[in-house]
């Protein structure tokens, strides 16, 4: 395909209008603008065209045309992603799944729901509620983010310590390949023959195919849930208390930590009654049968006291439980109010390294003269340092990025990883070679090739491409060349 054969923007739009309503083929700058970034607004790019198809057949036709002319395709759910995964490609089409917002069926006895990819995460739980069921993974963005985006990012939430991530809570997906061919991966059973493609697709960031339907598992709503809030004079003590609970054989439904900056910001925002003078705050939710919750709550309260908590408060009603969580769930916007901008990192570390990592981070914070607030999925070691900065100060974003990169390096150094749930996207592509060596990256690229040889699905994201792929294949067993590019990175 030479460039001369490629249709121009107007011509391409004409082709799409052939089978998609004209108003859902967007070409004008003003209407395109809201699509220029996802939740990580520091990375922007205007797309060529945005399409909002309504049927799987339309999506298939969009894909076939794009495949024929080697036009990049970037899938988009709600655009709440935090790694620039849904950031458009300048010469590409944004394929919005926003119109696929129907819950197709709920089977209460089999405890599953078939939903379209644009259905919001929370909408599934709301629809399942009448059957006493809910969908487990609950990202803080759950009012807005879509299940298609959740599958693409393998999203988690505050309850994934006990109930797992997206990958643990889906049964099957219907996906279109880059050529527009339909694939059914998984089944109504709990596993399928052959390699586990469902796991491979989950977290693949729109690089392997377009998800057009998802069957999720539903869980029975627990009889009871209570949250214990405990304040500590140091993060070390709070970290030890987390270890203490887990060693006692209790797996809380959620176990979250906030540091002093996050506590204050959240309290000012949500008025949840958090102790503003605490150095660290733990929220520990226990759920299950009424008897079980009672037994575990008593144990947790006792443990917190043993580990030196300065105050312990247990929710006595659903309203109080919701209030205690409100502070945590709104921690990002809350921090957004105390600083012009903030940058959210997403490393995961072995929990035992927490105190060390936080101390190092404080040292870097002093070095870069940038404040950092920490919210932490403490139960599973997933850290969200929020670096506070002001984008209007020249050079400050660059400084922030450098600081962020060093945090991620630190996470890898202590045995962790660069992203726990937000994905690589464009944002962390430069850190991929820290976590993976060249042979591993070559293997990732080979997987991508198996699905999308021309590399038109969400190009430039997720995995750094090797500049000289052809040469590389010829070399195979020889050491890989050092030429990684981060093509497409802003």
């Amino acid at each position: 395909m030479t460039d001369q054969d490629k249709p121009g923007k107007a011509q391409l739009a004409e082709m799409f209008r052939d089978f998609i309503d004209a108003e859902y083929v967007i070409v004008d700058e003003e209407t395109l603008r809201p699509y220029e970034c996802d939740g990580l607004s520091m990375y922007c790019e205007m797309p060529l065209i945005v399409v909002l198809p309504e049927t799987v057949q339309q999506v298939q036709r969009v894909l076939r045309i794009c495949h024929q002319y080697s036009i990049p395709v970037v899938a988009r759910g709600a655009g709440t992603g935090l790694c620039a995964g849904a950031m458009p490609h300048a010469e590409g089409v944004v394929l919005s799944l926003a119109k696929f917002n129907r819950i197709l069926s709920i089977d209460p006895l089999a405890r599953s729901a078939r939903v379209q990819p644009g259905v919001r995460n929370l909408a599934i739980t709301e629809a399942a509620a009448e059957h006493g069921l809910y969908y487990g993974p609950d990202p803080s963005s759950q009012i807005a983010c879509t299940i298609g985006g959740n599958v693409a990012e393998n999203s988690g939430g505050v309850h994934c310590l006990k109930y797992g991530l997206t990958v643990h809570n889906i049964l099957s997906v219907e996906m279109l390949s880059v050529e527009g061919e339909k694939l059914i991966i998984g089944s109504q059973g709990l596993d399928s023959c052959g390699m586990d493609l469902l796991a491979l697709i989950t977290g693949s960031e729109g690089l392997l195919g377009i998800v057009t339907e998802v069957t999720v598992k539903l869980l029975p709503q627990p009889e009871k849930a209570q949250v214990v809030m405990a304040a500590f004079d140091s993060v070390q003590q709070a970290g030890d208390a987390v270890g203490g609970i887990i060693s006692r054989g209790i797996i809380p439904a959620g176990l979250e930590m906030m540091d002093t900056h996050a506590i204050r910001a959240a309290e000012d925002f949500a008025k949840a009654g958090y102790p503003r003078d605490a150095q660290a705050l733990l929220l520990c939710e226990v759920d299950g049968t009424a008897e079980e919750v009672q037994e575990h709550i008593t144990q947790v309260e006792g443990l917190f006291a043993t580990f030196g908590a300065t105050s312990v408060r247990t929710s006595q009603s659903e309203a109080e439980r919701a209030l205690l969580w409100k502070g945590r769930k709104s921690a990002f916007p809350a921090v957004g109010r105390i600083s012009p901008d903030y940058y959210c990192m997403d490393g995961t570390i072995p929990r035992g390294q927490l105190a060390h990592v936080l101390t190092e981070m404080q040292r870097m914070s002093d070095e870069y003269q940038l404040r950092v607030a920490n919210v932490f999925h403490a139960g599973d070691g997933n850290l969200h340092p929020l670096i506070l900065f002001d984008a209007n100060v020249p050079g400050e974003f660059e400084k922030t990025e450098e600081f962020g990169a060093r945090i991620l390096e630190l996470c890898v150094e202590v045995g962790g990883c660069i992203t726990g749930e937000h994905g690589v996207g464009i944002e962390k592509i430069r850190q991929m070679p820290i976590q993976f060596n060249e042979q591993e990256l070559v293997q990732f690229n080979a997987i991508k090739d198996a699905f999308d040889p021309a590399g038109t699905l969400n190009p430039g994201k997720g995995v750094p491409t090797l500049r000289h792929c052809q040469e590389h294949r010829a070399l195979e067993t020889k050491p890989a060349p050092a030429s990684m590019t981060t093509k497409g990175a802003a």
Partner: protein
Amino acid sequence: MADIAKRLQEQILSARDAGTKLNIIGGNSKSFMGRVSSGEPLMVAGHSGIVSYQPVELVLTARAGTPLTELVAALDEQGQMLSFEPPRFSNESTLGGTLACNQSGPGRPWWSSVRDQVLGIRLLNGRGEHLRFGGQVMKNVAGYDVSRLQAGAMGSLGLITEVSLKVLPKPAVTRTLVFDMPLNEALGLMNRRAAEPKPLSAACWLDNRLYLRLSGAQAAVDATVRQWQGQGEQLDDGDAFWAALRDQELAFFDGAAPLWRFSVNPTAANPALEGDWLLDWGGAQRWYRGDASMAQMQELAEAAGGQVSLFRGGDRQGEVMHAQSPVLQTLQQRLKQSFDPDGVFNPGRLYSWM
């Protein structure tokens, strides 16, 4: 207890150079699974030992040849367990084989599967490259999930050399209730019970009896036993029953008749096929003993929303796994090619075309 990764790597490289094929063998306890594979044995059991285990982190890393019995013993000392209850078809069953064959026991619908609990692996691919994917932390979305992709691949993508797993505390108490009940009634009840927020941890039907296992905090289990027991009775040696089910040591599994495994919608009506059935996983995994054709069984499995495999016995020259759709077949062949371009590992073990 040794690290023989270097030696394994050399064997792979020389097989590749010589154009020979390798048949990966761990504890040799699952040689009955999959199709008959040609190839020279590549013995992995020597690559064994726990690399790290931190009970407070709930993470264990071990070499792939480590026997499950060794892992279970180490976890036992800390009051923890492999929550996916891997079958031990013999004392030699290894961790690597368990992942490659995607083997999980009775608690699977409630406590997760081996693929759910895998956090990371090391793998020798067909180019002899020793690669590391995933990690030793609970959450990791950097790169594709190559670790979980191995579940069910039966070694076709490479030699798993090391596995990191999430482990869980053992439940404080376990009780088993048994009810006399015909299959259809049991199927309905299993599903209704599973939709209740109670500490159910296994549900099985065999010989007109329904077995429900409850595990968790003492108070929760006791209260549920009171609410659910009705006409049922408590089984004294419940743990022994579930272990025998897990390891296929119940009388149902005796004899030479072909053993078929259905992985289906837990609520699906049971296939109308005369013969012996055993329902596990609350109805999502069903076992059948008897002669039948793969084509016939596939039709029944699809009607039940799932898939079938010829688990043990029968014709192991033909296909033993549910047929893949043409697109998925091509895709898996391409993936195989990406990991093992010369087809060194386990030729034809999973499918004749793999």
